């Protein structure tokens, strides 16, 4: 594809879309597929065929539209009226949607809110859940079919790459640095700086690796992005490759996400056919291609050096850093590892400019952040909020409080490496620094809401159990420290712990934090420690009663 063909393609696709009076997007992501979304799509198609409306109504799959607990979601767009978002549509309801809403709209009627049986299957787009979110990474979700390249191109897809091809590597890095984008995988290292470090290392072979090994239990943002907008990530990687003169791209995706793997595979095939990847990227003479590698169920492989070991077909054990992957990474070559969400941010930044991106957020945390809002939250799902929004707004307004109506006790962010944030600290604006200051961390973006009936001791136990299970076993502090800590925590949960045990937990935790080889071990004690900090009484209440000496 020649650079100028992008507009031609986009225009052709837009014209095609314009030809339809109504377009239906059914979420075909993992969550909604579990709720028979594919049946809904088939049902809609069959019904429209029966009514001979195929030429006027387009049926599409789409990426995640956020409210996973209410899936499958179906979005209807029309030239004549505002969008309608249906929820919990079963395949057998497809005919009803067509009959009660699509047909009237085609007949020129305006439907404010569907009535009848569909009344309770329509979501209010003015609800804070939608209204307060700021879509940037998720901008395309619900608006394109992730399996169609032309859909992506019609929404300015690959224009950023075209721009990048005219820029010097250094300039791309500068632009990224100016945008203030920081790694969305958890640690928050400035992306531009990381690229620049890799760029500066001289080597004939360099790798750009997409970390799609979303191991944090209770987080599914990266999977959703890969499923919903795979081309954005591919474009991001291509730009990253230009910025550091990388020669090969590698997707590392967890095997538990077969749909994401399938979508990325398909998107890569499309990109190669279209000349956007492969031997001659956008007719620029630059050759760049990708490989896909699957994880196999190891949380520790989210750690950069462990991930590299895994791509090399070995046990996913981390190695000491330095040397950092930027100097010595995959196959001992300079490598840059970026998280899916980070890469998905890249095209927009390049297209709209660093100042646009930096205009959102706090001083040191820019742009938007995806969260997987789950647990006892009323609204469960994928949300995107600007940095700087208070936790309370995210949890109480977007999340809508608890589903049970019980009081919220705390949230847990950062997954097994993060910590608990009690309710009285909810007025803190979301940023890397603030969350860290609260004793938690941004992490990849899991946000678990717990209510007053949930035990933080048991949640701490859950996370520690997870880390013990997922410890690679290489270094002693993590391998044995985690097990000992869990052993003590189990005692406390079982009601046989003593005050001495709490002291020992703190002591072991310190050894793990200071002497573990990688972040998994260093951060594994965090949930327990933060629970102890904010809710020590819940621990002491469970201790073995101290025997009082007889008089």
């Amino acid at each position, binding site marked *: 594809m020649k650079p100028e063909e992008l507009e031609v393609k986009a225009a052709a696709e837009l014209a095609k879309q314009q030809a339809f009076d109504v377009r239906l997007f059914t979420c075909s992501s993992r969550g909604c597929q579990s709720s028979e979304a594919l049946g809904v799509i088939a049902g809609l198609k069959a019904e429209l065929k029966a009514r001979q409306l195929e030429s006027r109504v387009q049926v599409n799959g789409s990426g995640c539209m956020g409210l996973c607990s209410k899936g499958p979601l179906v979005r209807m767009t029309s030239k004549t009226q505002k969008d309608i978002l249906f929820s919990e549509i079963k395949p057998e309801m497809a005919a009803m949607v067509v009959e009660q809403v699509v047909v009237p709209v085609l007949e020129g009627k305006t439907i404010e809110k569907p009535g009848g049986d569909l009344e309770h299957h329509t979501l209010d787009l003015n609800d804070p859940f939608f209204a307060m979110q700021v879509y940037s990474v998720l901008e395309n979700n619900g608006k394109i079919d992730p399996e169609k390249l032309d859909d992506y191109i019609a929404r300015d897809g690959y224009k950023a790459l075209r721009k990048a091809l005219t820029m010097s590597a250094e300039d791309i890095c500068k632009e990224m640095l100016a945008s203030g984008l920081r790694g969305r995988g958890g640690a928050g290292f400035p992306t531009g700086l990381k690229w620049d470090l890799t760029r500066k290392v001289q080597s004939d072979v360099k790798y750009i690796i997409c970390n799609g090994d979303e191991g944090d239990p209770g987080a599914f943002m990266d999977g959703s992005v890969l499923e919903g907008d795979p081309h954005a990530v591919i474009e991001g990687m291509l730009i990253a490759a230009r910025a550091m003169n990388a020669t090969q791209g590698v997707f590392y995706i967890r095997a538990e996400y077969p749909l994401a793997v399938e979508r990325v595979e398909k998107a890569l095939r499309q990109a190669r056919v279209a000349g956007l990847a492969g031997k001659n990227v956008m007719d620029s003479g630059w050759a760049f291609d990708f490989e896909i590698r699957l994880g196999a169920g190891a949380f520790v492989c989210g750690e950069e050096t462990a991930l590299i070991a895994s791509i090399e077909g070995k046990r996913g054990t981390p190695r000491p850093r330095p040397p950092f992957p930027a100097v010595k990474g995959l196959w001992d070559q300079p490598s840059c590892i970026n998280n899916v969400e980070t890469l998905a941010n890249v095209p927009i930044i390049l297209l709209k400019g660093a100042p646009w991106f930096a205009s959102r957020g706090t001083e040191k945390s820019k742009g938007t952040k995806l969260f997987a809002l789950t647990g006892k939250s009323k609204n469960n799902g994928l949300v995107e909020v600007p940095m700087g929004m208070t936790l309370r707004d995210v949890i109480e307004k977007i999340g809508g409080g608890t589903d049970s109506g019980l009081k919220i006790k705390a949230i847990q962010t950062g997954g097994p490496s993060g910590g608990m944030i009690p309710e009285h600290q909810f007025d803190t604006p979301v940023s890397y620094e603030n969350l860290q200051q609260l004793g938690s961390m941004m992490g990849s973006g899991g946000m678990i809401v717990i209510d007053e009936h949930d035990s933080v001791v048991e949640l701490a136990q859950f996370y520690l159990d997870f880390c013990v299970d997922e410890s690679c*076993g*290489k270094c002693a502090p993590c391998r044995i*420290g985690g097990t000992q800590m869990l052993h003590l925590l189990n005692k406390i949960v079982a009601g046989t712990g003593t005050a001495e045990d709490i002291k020992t937990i703190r002591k072991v935790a310190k050894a793990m934090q200071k002497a573990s080889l990688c972040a998994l071990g260093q951060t594994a004690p965090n949930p327990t420690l933060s629970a102890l900090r904010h809710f020590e009484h819940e621990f002491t209440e469970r201790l073995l009663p101290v025997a009082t000496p007889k008089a």
Partner: protein
Amino acid sequence: MSNTVHATINGLPVAVTKGTSILDAARQVHVRIPTLCKHPDLDATGACGICIVQIKNNGKMLRACCTAVEDKMEILTETPEIVDVRRSVLELILSRHPNECLTCLRNQNCELQTLAADFGLTWTGLDSIVPEHAIDDSTHSIVLDSRKCITCGRCIQVCQQDQNVWALSFLNRGFETRIAAAGDIPLWDSPCVRCGQCSAHCPTGAIVEYDESVKVWEKLEDPDAYCVVQIAPAVRVAVGEAFGFPVGANLTGKIYAALRRMGFKAVFDTNFGADLTIIEEATEFKSRLLEGKGVLPLITSCCPGWVNFMEKFHSDMIPHFSSCKSPHAMVGALTKTYYAQKQGIDPAKIFMVSIMPCTAKKSEIIRSKEMYSSGYQDVDVSITTREFARMIKQSGIDFVTIPNEPCDHILGMYTGAGTIFGATGGVMEAALRTAYFYVTGGDAPKLDFTATRGLKGVKEASIDVAGTTVRIAVAHGLANVEQVIDKIRAAKEAGEEPPYHFVEVMACPGGCVGGGGQPYGATNELRIKRAEGLYSEDFADQLRCSHHNPYIKQLYDEFLGAPASHKAEQLLHTGYQVLPEYKR
């Protein structure tokens, strides 16, 4: 850009080459950072977390073993906080380690125990969480007890990288991580070649030699048994380390004396067997080189670890193998035939003990029917240098002051050529001396073939033997063998002339001086010193060629007839078989 970085350690300035680890840099300013998993032979893995140090300006803790010093780094190594964290980590390690020090072969010789003593640990305050794992002693050479393992990974690095055997690997992950043969099979069924390098590198008692000293004591106490012993070349320069002698001290006379006091009725020396091996092997070489009988190169076979490796991984090399038994096996066979006849002893009563630097010898003595050539098991027990050192201590002999004694019989009389068998290249050098004589009828003008010496992984040379060029290769450490074998194989497939005429291989790094059964703590520095102990004896010897050994001549005259005679074939030679890499 300058290649030197400047930093401070505990406020003391250091200047080191870029890439130097903090651990090494600290030595410059006389700071000894404690370590556990790091071994000087091996790459740092950072597994244990004991060697952590602190960076002054940000308080970060880094591992000294695997962190390179950076310019302007301010490193602290002994703050109370560091010591506290190190102690906590050590406590954690001990809570996962069985409290069996008093009944462990590594008692008082264990890196973990030493560290615990240094830190003065009295009680860990943590519950013991030692998993139950079966002990694997199936090889009868080494014993693997993964309960005692601290998963430092040294054995695995040695087995996989240095030896290229891939018998051991980690299994499972996290707390369940343990060392085992592929898929949890007994080592006996695995590719293990019994070299014992894993045991020589293990910091704890997780992998130790299969201790058979009790068997020896039992026989020594048995009035019916006629106990005979022989010591390998490399033992004499290593056993002293257990008694505070300088590394490389050659203690042959003391060893003979100690053995006699222990109750052995006859003390022989494997060096005699080495001389004999040279006579047989040089004869074999001559017939292959000059008479075209058999293929070239000829490959040495005195290392049982190497024999196992070849039978499992390179069985196409069998025709190249010298059919000579290893020296101690020859002495064993002769003891129960020649010696028994001469002394009028019932060979059935003879109990032959070999003291070897080697764990593989333990299973070599029963490896095939040829090991019973005397009609009995030629060698009854083979113990390692480490077991032997313990036996000296058990016997109450003051090894430091005991006067030298000679050996007993012609089966203990040897030349310098036999002595140097214990170092890599030694067999080759000894063989060249005799081969030269066999080809030319006279001795080489210079007996030191120095091209064979030293610790380079593969040593190649062309040697002029009176106009005939002999191409040789010497390899030690099994991973180094591959390139030699590959060359041979490639030439064979291409129908070209073989790249070598004669190849020596020793499984262990440095040869037998670095054997798997030698005292702990072997590093290249140590291996060189041990080898020097052997070479200096050779250099000082009157007789430095096996063919000059008068007792070898006597043996042929009285008993064997001639080299490669029928009797010699029967007693001194063996065969090889193809073994599967995995039995299951």
